[in-house]
């Protein structure tokens, strides 16, 4: 079980009931798994972040990932692995 910190930038927070950040416990191994999980919980995440035609990250969406104290990096591949205490910023 991983504990992540999830951050939602303004328009993404529309999906989370205006929640801007929250701790998130998960068994997700990849970014794709996490998006599936959030979609099941909040709805709308797949539509916002996954291009239905290609199955890849939407070209008008961004996800950044880092651990505390590290420089966030843009997630390009949805197979991107997650690890404990990771910070995921959706925007």
């Amino acid at each position, binding site marked *: 079980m991983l504990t992540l910190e999830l*951050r939602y*930038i*303004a*328009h993404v*927070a*529309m999906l989370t009931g*205006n929640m*801007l950040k929250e701790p998130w416990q998960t068994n997700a191994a990849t970014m794709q798994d996490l998006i599936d999980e959030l979609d099941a919980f909040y709805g709308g995440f797949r539509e916002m972040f996954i291009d239905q035609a290609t199955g890849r990250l939407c*070209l*008008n*969406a*961004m996800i*950044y990932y*880092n651990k505390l*104290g*590290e*420089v*966030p990096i843009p997630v390009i591949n949805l197979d991107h692995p997650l690890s404990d205490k990771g*910070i995921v*910023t959706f*925007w």
Partner: protein
Amino acid sequence: MAVRDNEVQTILRVDLSTGKVSKETLPEQWTRQHLGGRGMNARLLFEETRSGTDAFSPENTLYFGTGLMDGLPVGHGRMSVACKSPRGTVAEGSFGGFFGPELRKAGIDYLAISGKAQQPVYLYINDDTVEIRDASHLWGLATDKTDAALRQELGDADIQLRYIGPAAENRVHSAVIMGNLNNSGGRAGCGEVMGDKKLKALAVRGTKGIRINNYDAFLEAYRDYYRKLALKTSRDPWTPVWSASGAPVLARLFTDMGNLMTRNAQQMSWDNDKAMAISCEPFLDHYVTKAKACFGCPWPACQKLYRIPKGKYQGFKGGNYWAGQPVVFASLIDNSDLDLVLVISGLCNQYGLDIFHVGFTLAWAMECYQKGLLTKADTDGLDLSFGCPNPEGIIDLVRKIAYKEGFGELLALGCAQAAKIIGQGSEKWALAVKGQELEAITERNNYMVALGIAVSEVGPDHTRWYPPYPCNPNLIPQKELEKLGLDLDLELAFQGRNPKEKGKLLRWFTISRAIVESLPGCVFLVRDTLGLDMRPWWKLFRTASGVDMSYPEFLTSGERLMNLDRAFNIREGFRRADDKPPYRMMYEDVPGFGYPRLEPVFDGMLDEYYTTNGWSLSTSIPTAKKLHELDMDYVLDDFQKLGVEVE
């Protein structure tokens, strides 16, 4: 109703010394060479301003330029203002709103204002009526009061205005020209020059229509353009962010990325809760009263009018909260009180102060105070610690800067000049280039930004290459780039902290944005592939104006403008040594995320930029071959007369 043909460009010349007013048509070949707007202003400025002209002399002409797309859905109300800067460089800026389209509807594309008035005046234009009117009763008024007074005096609530505030009247460094209460432009020196001319305001009313040359083709081109901007079809990750939230969201993101200048950029990351407190979410939820768009903008209105809802500043009204204010009035001075940020920002608009001048100079002074170079004996008793322990004192200091009173007189010079007076090493944390303060975008983690800020002819100005990243490499196959005139490895260019390809990337961005600002169009709307593939802009320009030019010709107009701006500065003595980032970014590492200094990579990027441009590596002067290739032999002739060392 009269309708203007959309291929002839006219200029109204006003000599404030003599009161003479005249109108003429600009040479047709200039439209092919420079399109309009910023490009045409640059040509006028170069041709009509002799080398060595004193910025505060009657001979320094102030140009306001529209362009052939102004008054159409693509112009977005943008217009350019230009003159020679008191810092010696070309001064150019642009602003949005409605003034540009209104001026065109009055039958005027450019204003050239020379001379100096004996007493304060304003220029009144009502179609073919042009009058220089007394403005003694307006002199000294804040911009919001000026706006209201002129509308009442002219009995026209919708008249379009540009005006200056007390800061420009007092020739405060970087003072801006304002309009529509919150649209500012010309921080590189145009406001100071307008104040020096005792020109308080411009008022324009126009009623003519503007003809679209080929309506059906224009509409088709517009549909293609719009698909790249619409929320559902745009392939740009910033489209939903800007549409829903606006630029203040960057403070939240930048602090996570080690990208937020904090305490005068001594640190590059701020407390996340502080960043949240001044981000767009609380602003949108609690302060915004109305949104306002510029002329013909297809996006949700990005200008936000606000009112402070409660607390000691309850009822304070202002407008616009962008990417700049959450940096310069928050993290840079370590202030997380959003009310205070909005009051300082609103006061800057009322006084006509440049927010970047005020923010970076305040932060410079705070670091001086932190290090004991300034004490309460220097600051009129104000505790100038980071964190703003005396907010009322900071608010009063902003007023003192506008009126050059007390300690404000030093800060009114800008941080670079003030540091020369205080000395003792404080030049190292005066965050300016070519005498002009930085903006909100940072450098050590985005090498193209570092290069762009250093070489910008007007001092730091992100609009010269905005947005500062290429589109996603997945959007355009590499082999397509050559067809678009780009010799660029997009994958390498996309890597922010890889110095390779940054010179080439900046060259392309500078050329393409020069084109957008010459149409004019809004660089904020350079989304999706609109920053790499200029054909949609080309189609819009051709179909609207009827000016038939090839795509390579269209691209060359941008390169010509880039070289013209450089040539102006070369003529004034600027060389390679002037193209460098501030000392702090160049030679100091950042604690925390560990971004290294720029020094090891900077010269290589600069070499690549000059080489790709066809400029001398040692001097940065465009070579004779390049100037000839761009039909700029008039520049070459001028250089030779002045003894400029052209290779």
